[in-house]
């Protein structure tokens, strides 16, 4: 014992030293980091000069977003070409003509116009006769300004993040090291104290042999303490009561647990794409059935095929969040389709996306989305929960038969304006007048309605 403790103590000193050195190193590196961050901030504010077309860039921005943004970006080819530097490439007059009526310009045989038209697979740019010359100037001013700003900002920001990342990695490592050292230090301190206590106990034990009588009295006291328990244990009624209570408690817990066997509420598997319903259905307010288009006509709501994703993600690439790079999650769609966003061409090396199924209804139960969505008009959220708030989807409802049946018992049939139900409800009314017509009343609880 003694040997060990002395060992620890001898180790303590150098370790403490190492800890101090490490902490100071971290401080030093943080200090270093501050400098480039500052320099980048100053750099980004510097260049914003340069004579563009005479127009109000701020007004142009609004116009650009409402009229051009769907097909054009400043620094990237989307549906149409990237616009940065357009003012240098073409004359102001030409641009005015093109924007007002591109087809007219092409028809007139303008060489540049035809070249652009050919390059983009004869995809016509809509004419904008509603834009005044001033409007166009404003837009071009905005393009000029943004075009000048973007590349420099990008490089500057890129440099900054690169630097931040460099130091970030090293500082993380150092912080981790320091934490390990600190914890080790604490452990050593605690262990040292334990050893001290144990040594002290050893010393007092030796002294105890002298006070043997006192001990016996203490034991007698302890016996008295258990007397009540022993008496109670002899009381058969009490024992029976306790056992029964225990049985009931355990039994009911067990019973509840059994009911939850196989219930996967909250099941939230990791999906191959970090698709956020919160963003799509919540923030962007995209209708559920835009993507899950089977829900109103099929038994399957269907996971959207990738061509539906591409309706938007052909140009929605979230580059602003990823420093000009295409979002890695959106890139997964492109990879699956073997789509090259540069050339906008599809290849043959396609790979389907293997989503993990969350709502696993057993094969023996037949469920039809269209019956519930189209006919009954039930909101998706009724079963799937606050899907518009889910970053990652989880199973909200238990999907048990009890859950189905409860809803069938409570939900009134949406029979208004549906001629199918006219006769059925009339016949039903003639038997049981006045009662609420739920799915259950119309036979919605019968085995064969879901199990066949």
């Amino acid at each position, binding site marked *: 014992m003694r040997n060990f403790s002395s060992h620890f103590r001898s180790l303590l000193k150098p370790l403490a030293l190492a800890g101090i050195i490490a902490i100071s190193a971290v401080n030093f590196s943080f200090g270093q980091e501050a400098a480039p961050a500052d320099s980048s901030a100053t750099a980004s504010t510097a260049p914003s000069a340069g004579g563009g077309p005479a127009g109000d860039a701020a007004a142009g921005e609004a116009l650009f977003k409402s009229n051009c943004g769907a097909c054009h970006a400043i620094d990237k080819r989307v549906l149409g070409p990237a616009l940065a530097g357009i003012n240098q490439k073409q004359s102001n007059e030409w641009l005015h003509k093109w924007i007002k009526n591109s087809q007219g310009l092409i028809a007139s045989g303008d060489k540049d116009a035809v070249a652009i038209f050919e390059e983009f697979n004869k995809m016509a740019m809509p004419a904008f006769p509603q834009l005044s010359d001033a409007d166009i100037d404003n837009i071009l001013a905005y393009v000029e300004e943004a075009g000048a700003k973007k590349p420099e900002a990008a490089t500057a920001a890129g440099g900054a993040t690169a630097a931040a990342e460099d130091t970030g990695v090293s500082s993380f490592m150092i912080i981790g090291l320091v934490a390990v050292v600190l914890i080790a230090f604490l452990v050593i301190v605690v262990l040292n104290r334990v050893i001290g206590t144990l040594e002290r106990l050893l010393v007092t034990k030796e002294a105890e042999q002298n006070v043997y009588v006192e001990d016996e009295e203490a034991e007698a006291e302890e016996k008295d303490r258990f007397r009540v328990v022993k008496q109670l244990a002899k009381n058969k009624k009490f024992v029976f009561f306790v056992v029964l209570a225990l049985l009931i408690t355990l039994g009911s817990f067990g019973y509840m647990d059994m009911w939850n066997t196989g219930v996967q509420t909250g099941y939230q598997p990791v999906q191959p794409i970090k698709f956020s319903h919160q963003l799509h259905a919540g923030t962007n307010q995209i209708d559920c059935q835009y993507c899950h288009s089977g829900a109103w006509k099929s038994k399957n709501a269907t*996971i959207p095929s990738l061509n539906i994703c591409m309706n938007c993600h052909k140009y929605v690439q979230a580059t602003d969040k990823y420093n000009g790079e295409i979002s890695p999650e959106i890139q997964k769609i492109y990879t699956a389709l073997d789509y090259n966003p540069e050339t906008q061409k599809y290849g043959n090396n396609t790979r389907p996306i293997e989503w993990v199924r969350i709502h696993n209804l057993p094969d*023996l139960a037949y469920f039809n989305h269209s*019956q519930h969505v189209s006919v009954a008009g039930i909101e998706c959220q009724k079963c799937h929960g606050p899907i518009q708030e889910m970053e990652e989807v989880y199973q909200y409802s238990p999907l048990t038969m009890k859950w189905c049946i409860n809803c069938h018992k409570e939900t009134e049939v949406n029979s208004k304006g549906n*001629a199918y139900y006219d006769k*059925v409800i009339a016949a039903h009314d*003639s038997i049981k007048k006045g009662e609420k017509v739920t799915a259950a009343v119309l036979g919605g609880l019968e*085995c064969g309605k879901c*199990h*066949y």
Partner: protein
Amino acid sequence: MESTKKYWKGLEEVNNTPEFAEHAKNEFAEPIPVDELLQGSGLNSVAPRRDFLKAMGFGLGAVSLAACNVAPVQKSIPYLVKPEEVTPGVPNYYASSYKGGAIIVKTREGRPIKIEGNPACPINRGGTDSQAQASVLDLYDNSKLKGPLKGGAEYSWDDVDTYVKRGLAKAQAAGKTIALVSSTINSPSTKAVIAEFSTQYPATKHVTYDAISYSGIIKANEQSFGKAVLPQYRFDKANVIVSFGADFLGSWISPTQFSTQYASNRNIASLNNKKMSRHIQFESGLSLTGSNADSRVAIKLSEEGPALLSLYAEVSGASVSGASLNNQPANAAIKLAAKELLAAKGAALVVSGSNSVAVQTTVNAINSLLGSYGNTIDLDNPSYQYAGKDEDFTLLLTDMNAGRVGAVMFLDANPAYSHPLAKEFTEALKKVDLSISFADRPDETASLCKVIAPNHHYLEAWGDENALEGYYTLVQPTINPIFNTRQAEVSLLTWANYPNQDYYAFVRSNWEKTVLAATGKKWDDVLQSGIISLPAKTGGAYAFTGSVDAGTVAKESAALAKDIELHIYQSVSIGSGAQANNPLLQEVPDPVSKVTWDNYAAINPKFAESLGLKQFDVVAIKTDKYSVELPVLHQPGQAQGTISVAVGYGRTKSGKVGDGVGKNVYPFITYTQGNAHFANTVTVSNTGGYEELAQTQTHHTIEGRNVIRETTFADYKKDPAHGSGNHGEKHPTYDLWNKYDQPGHNWVMAIDLNACTGCGACIVACNVENNVPVVGKDEVRRRREMHWLRIDRYYTFNEEGKAITEEHELEGTKGNMENVSVVHQPMLCQHCEHAPCETVCPVLATVHSTEGLNHMAYNRCVGTRYCANNCPYKVRRFNWFNYWNDSRFDNYLNNEFTQLVLNPDVTTRFRGVMEKCSMCIQRIQAGKLEAKMEKRALVDGDIKMACQQACASNAIIFGDANDPNSEVSKALKNERTYYVLEELNVQPGVGYMTKVTNTGSQEA
């Protein structure tokens, strides 16, 4: 007077064998060995403590290990780019065509899963036969080739093409024939392809050869009327039909078409108009058609000729040599038939199943005298379903032997199996340098060929058909090719160096040039409907210019009358054997004998007794050239001195299912005057072997209960309710059960026993729709077939025009077991109001619905089988195995390919649960949902049962009884309606309509 005829299901029942009496008591053939367990080594055996502990320990360990299993992760993989027309979960339907009849193919997520008849089809009118229904399974047959073969090794298509092209060029250069052997091709586009091929290779000779030949009829028509065609028979226009061995409802030429026509004169509508056709059948084996005949006379094959001649003599009034028939009952029947035929002049029809030119010429002469041409027989709009010429193939054989053939190709032809001269053919094939087969599997012929260029299944291919004059159907692919196959037409075009080998473009341009140009229709419209039907040509009456060669007819018949006469026929479901590898078809019971998975020697019980042959004795059937060994089946109704054996069995290279099922009897076919004759004279000897046939017929007994109700047409005309037991007011009934309300719908069914021919198409349709497993021969022997719908066949004796009414009369009048009447009765879950099965289920797995159905919740079932024991109709089937996941059933439906045919809307049932007809509840639910989504009331006819849809004779009507105007409500109000075992007051939901027999003017 109500009929109290005694009905029986089989000879066991008539003779009341001890085995039958024992089985009659039990619902299940094999009792559970409880006694054995209790008395024998079961519970009395001492389990040592250590063993007990080991078992316990293992059990506990296993259970806890099993419990550790987390729920498996299921993947959900969407389309990359979804085809516009596909919505997962919603079926798509495509018009196509099978054997010339228009069909609709139901696909789910790109997989064809069901064949339905196209109601717009002018020949089959929405009906299908069992083969069409089962053909969807052939698509997923994993015995098919996965790619082209050369010399038995896998090759690429390019290599095959180079090799074949070189071979063809060599043959062409050497001045040798390039023969294309095919079964009848009525596809205009395929014919055009062959024409293209012939221009590239002028040495091409197209030989048409059908396993089942109708060349006798074609030749006879050429001789009689100068038109070498197969006429279109119109059974719907015939009031009196006399058939000599033609099984026109089962297998003759176009059975689905004929069933539709035949039933139209015997169904509810016709009877309501007090009109019914009369059908007299002369035949040796009891065929499906014979079982439906009003009067059936068993005659030997050798008597067919004389019988026909005497009919000719009777009809013409002239004396004909050889018209003497040494068979008194037949003689009388012929006289009667002649009288009735003459009375129905212009609406009479005589047909013969013979392939002899002389016989068919005689038939033509009779029909001509009866004024049938232009009425019941249409020569102007002939059938192109069969055009094979037997002589052509024999000629080819000589050419092959003489080394004059440089290359031979086989398209849908398998002469090494189905030609009587198969042996000679095999030898001759060796002398041909280049042999190519387009078969989809290495079958008997293909495996002898140097190259196999596997053809697409028709559901993967483009094509067209022209079954009748002026009637064209399109075939369109409903799935991408499953294996690396190539359409035979594309192969031919490739080898002919045709510039554009896209067969779709070829068919389309061919149609645009011909059919579409003639009708002015658009390709897309035709593709959607699948049909072009030109107005029927009308022609003049045809004068009979042939001559009745009584001498030849008599001689041909006399040649058969040597030993025992062998009658070779096609079974209803297996047919010529081309689809022998289809387990669904193998398991459909023969409509008459109820035998599955085998062919057999059908012998009259009396005749068998005289030969000393017992049921299931294996006999050797011999000619001097060929012999087979087959089990005996005692077949009532079989003519004395004859044996009937079906072709289509005994395949050796059809695949895992069809190989070794039954024996091949094609080699027994004889040739006279260049035409194949489906008869021979044989000797029969007992080999001492015993083989139990897998029959479904004796699996249940009705214990003499009155389940069949019959009347005669004469009685029916006097009182439509005759024989049905409907006497106006019903007895007061008292119920123990509460009444179920059916406020919404009340699904019921009506089955017209008079329209039902018993063909069994409904059984296959039900199997495919409801994922009913195939269990195999062994399991059928154990009475474990799973069919939800069966067709019960009941015999009655009919001695001297008198039905047997009393039990004790049975003994004395079994006679020669030739004169039996048959009634077919489809039997399925009756969806009783007071269902006995429901009251005995201890776990409420089978319960009643508010729509009049008896539901079965498989997952609730624990397999007590009480319900099956308590069901008076014996329609509940128990899953003895997990047929969908058990290696023992791999050959049938349990493999990765065949499982693609499963209907995704119906669960597959697990071992240990009961199942039964659900009244296609998935269709009811889908129909209701469609109405709800369209916000309209459900219309009668929206929902059709699978069996109803398949039925060519519309014997099954389904609908809502709460709708007074529905077809089914009207049918059930019919006077003929009765309910099977209605005395039990289980209140079935399925009503039957009495069978009406038109016994004719004389017999009535």
